[in-house]
């Protein structure tokens, strides 16, 4: 299973900034996420209370998840396969050449799993 961290919401209108649907990070299943990237981590830390640095995380709940990102898990696919796909048709910062259509996806859930075919149906090269 490959995990793709996707930006939710436009950072800025100018082209040098990230846009809604931009794939940012691609890692294998099981790779760790930060509390601002993963709703699951955010909530789990909140339930656990104090973190390793002694910071009280008990205020972190599903209701106040910042929601800047969304994790798309691509079933039966490796991270290397996703990266190779994204590099096949683009130069430079490859993943920023593509966008993932997040319409109709419950991004507030923080993550979903999808088949490769389902993901391919939603991923496309940005128009230049």
């Amino acid at each position, binding site marked *: 299973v490959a995990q793709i*961290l996707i*930006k939710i*919401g*436009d*950072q*800025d209108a*100018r082209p*040098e*900034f*990230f846009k809604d649907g*931009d794939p*940012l*990070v691609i890692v294998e299943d099981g*790779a*760790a*996420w*930060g*509390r*601002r*990237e993963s709703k699951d*981590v955010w909530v789990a830390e909140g339930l656990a209370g104090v*973190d*390793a*640095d002694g910071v009280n995380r008990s205020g972190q709940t599903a209701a106040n998840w*910042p*929601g*800047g*990102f969304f994790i798309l898990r691509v079933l039966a696919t490796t991270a290397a396969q996703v990266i190779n796909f994204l590099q096949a048709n683009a130069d*430079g*910062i*490859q*993943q920023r050449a593509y966008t993932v259509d997040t319409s109709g996806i419950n991004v507030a859930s923080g993550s979903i799993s999808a088949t490769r075919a389902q993901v391919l149906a939603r991923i496309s090269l940005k128009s230049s």
Partner: protein
Amino acid sequence: MPVAPQPSTINAGGGGDYTSITAWKADIPATLTQEQDALVVGAVTEATGVPFTGFTTTSSNKITIQGKSGSRHTGVSGTGARITGGSGVLRVQVDFFELDWIEIAATDGNYAVSLQRSGGTNSLKIQHSILKSSASVSNFVLAALGSTSNYIIRNSILYATGANRVYDARGAGTLESDNCIFYTQGGDFPFLNDAGHVVKNTYVGGASNQCFWSGGTTTGSNNAGSDTTATAQFSSSINSIAGSTAYTSVTATSENFTTKTGFTTFTDVGVTIAAVTDDIIGTSRPQGSAYDIGAFENISAGGSTPWQSFVQDNQPLPDTRRAVAI
């Protein structure tokens, strides 16, 4: 849009706010309304590098990336917080930006860091850091670009693991290099300066041709090199000190620029720089009668042999300084 917490922790192993600089950058507003400070823990990989372009910064609302306390390097590559990658690991084009207490390593021969102001009043600093790359001649380990720019490099070690150039500052406006080490494995022109630049207490070595090269009149003093260009350009300087004489190891890919045991030529022969109060690992300067040349300030044991500083954040004291039960 969510805004990154200030400061944010970046830990690829989890337990932080983000696992990559890229994700952290995605939460920085285009116009900063406060400083955005990333505290890096351990090793972070950015395979295609990270561009910082378009952000509006000010002297108080700047972008800073540094090693988190407890995860800072010991002055040797691979020992602390670091960002490795390719395609130019950090490609900075903003006005106010700082790197501190961190290692940036390019794994593909491209830039470790490129600095270029975005167009206004600016200040871009690299302090207490290690930058390395195999660095092709056209790319350098560090490139500082653009006129009317204001770049400061202090207490840092920059080196190429191959026979290539290290630091290109040609055309840069105001540039200051204090207490640094620049080293190449036989490449030519490792440190390219220009008119208006100031260089002090800095060692440049390993070059096949012209350790110090300038396209104009540089100022500064108390520098050293492995060839004869230090005294040709700067007063109170030292020539013909090979890197293998001064440092623990200059062997390619196992470099260690801590001071070689028994080497004292660079001890207490630097000039005082008011803005520089410590060394690459936080030891206060000076330790003796004057600043040392290079990134490390040696702690004199009272004899002729300097001790390398072991005063390192969250590091155990060496055996020689542990309390002994009587």
